[in-house]
């Protein structure tokens, strides 16, 4: 595969980018759902069950490889596309035109890179700790207390601030990405495209605000103690 990515035509790259992107979006939705358990049940029981299920279910575990693969593919393709795009205009304009287009679409690589950095930190904080670190057992169960780990991290002001910024950028990224994926897949229709564009806005706001809200509630609420 590695040898063929570079040889993909521009459209093939875009199609793969779109399909992978939509897959990653599904992951985000699942992730958001699981996170929301912490709000519905401040005792962390529900969340920990969810986390435990995710960590032990063989299907989900196998999906994990696809998820990693997806992230890596999305990032590599994004970089290749971007480098090609930069090379396509070796001499830049004195006056750049910015008008008349979606502002978010112009900064996909920038939002993408910041999200990638966020992802790395996020990964170290949670995934590595869960896999290789020590996580206390929850109450009288055999489950790890992932909820406590989350609450601990979400009580650190600097982290929360970074988290919020990254998620706002994620909203920008998704706002263009979702509807753009349909365009890349050849789906543009006078009737349905306005709906897809609306859905794109809704999804990006819901996902981003959802994650942010959960974080802020945990940060500010005294019901959550690390």
């Amino acid at each position: 595969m590695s040898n063929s990515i570079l040889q993909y035509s521009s459209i093939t790259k875009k199609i793969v980018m779109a399909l992978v992107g939509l897959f990653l979006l599904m992951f985000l939705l699942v992730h958001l759902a699981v996170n929301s358990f912490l709000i519905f049940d401040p005792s962390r029981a529900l969340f920990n069950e969810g986390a435990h299920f995710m960590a032990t279910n063989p299907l989900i575990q196998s999906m994990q490889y696809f998820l990693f693969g997806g992230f890596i593919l999305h990032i590599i393709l994004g970089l290749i596309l971007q480098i090609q795009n930069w090379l396509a205009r070796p001499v830049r304009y004195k006056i750049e035109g910015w008008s008349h287009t979606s502002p978010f679409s112009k900064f996909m690589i920038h939002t993408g890179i910041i999200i990638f950095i966020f992802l790395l930190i996020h990964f170290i904080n949670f995934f590595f700790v869960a896999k290789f670190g020590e996580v206390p057992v929850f109450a009288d169960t055999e489950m790890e207390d992932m909820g406590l780990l989350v609450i601990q991290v979400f009580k650190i002001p600097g982290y929360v601030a970074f988290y919020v910024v990254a998620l706002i950028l994620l909203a920008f990224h998704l706002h263009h990405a979702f509807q753009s994926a349909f365009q890349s897949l050849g789906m543009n229709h006078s009737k349905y495209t306005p709906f897809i564009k609306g859905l794109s806005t809704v999804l990006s706001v819901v996902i981003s605000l959802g994650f942010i809200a959960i974080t802020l509630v945990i940060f500010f609420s005294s019901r959550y103690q690390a």
Partner: protein
Amino acid sequence: MDFTLKIWRQKDAKTRGSFQTYKVTDISSDSSFLEMLDILNESLVLKGEMPINFDNDCREGICGACSLYVNGRPHGPDTEITICQVHMRKFKNVGTIVIEPWRSKAFPVLSDLMIDRSAFDKIIQAGGYISASTGGVPDANAILIRKEKADESMDAAACIGCGACVAACKNASAMLFVSAKVSHLALLPQGQVEAKRRVQMMVAEMDGQGFGNCTNTGACEAECPKGIKLTYIARMNREFIAGKMGAQKMDL
């Protein structure tokens, strides 16, 4: 009307270029933008200097030759128009006008504001046609075409190949141009026979010419003088997917 013009001057493809500043005065608001440049050029010639080279021909917005990037926009401040049709009344209260050539690796500058757009011709030559040789074709009315399809095809075929889409795109992508060409033919029954082959050949050539990738920003659509829509890019993507899935592997 008086203007300060900052214009890209470059002797030829090999020489380094730079911006030069010129002043023009007493320009009629009814003059076209290119007529304003004609006036400047006349004054340069009288001073013994070389006039500014810029491509233009029909000055009716149909040949697609004119290609100026004016104050940050291909074809200047108006929409759905080529720069040859823009009149100076559109520059009320604009003191300084910056004029640049289209910038793209695939469109090298030849002289001043003139660029080489033969990459577009190469894309068409790769397969952007119906291979009907002269003679031996059926009666024109033997092929029935739904009016809506014919109109949609015509709207795509209205592309004048000026390259404003490439100039406007932050990635210098030629997708709008290529998709207009692909769609024009793919929408017609006559074009169906070669449709799968055509789209793959053209996209391969487009990539080979060094254009950037489409990131669906919509800048091309916003600046296209003929109002070619992004829906044609989606159509081309569709045609491309169908071509990949349906056609046998081709030697490209």
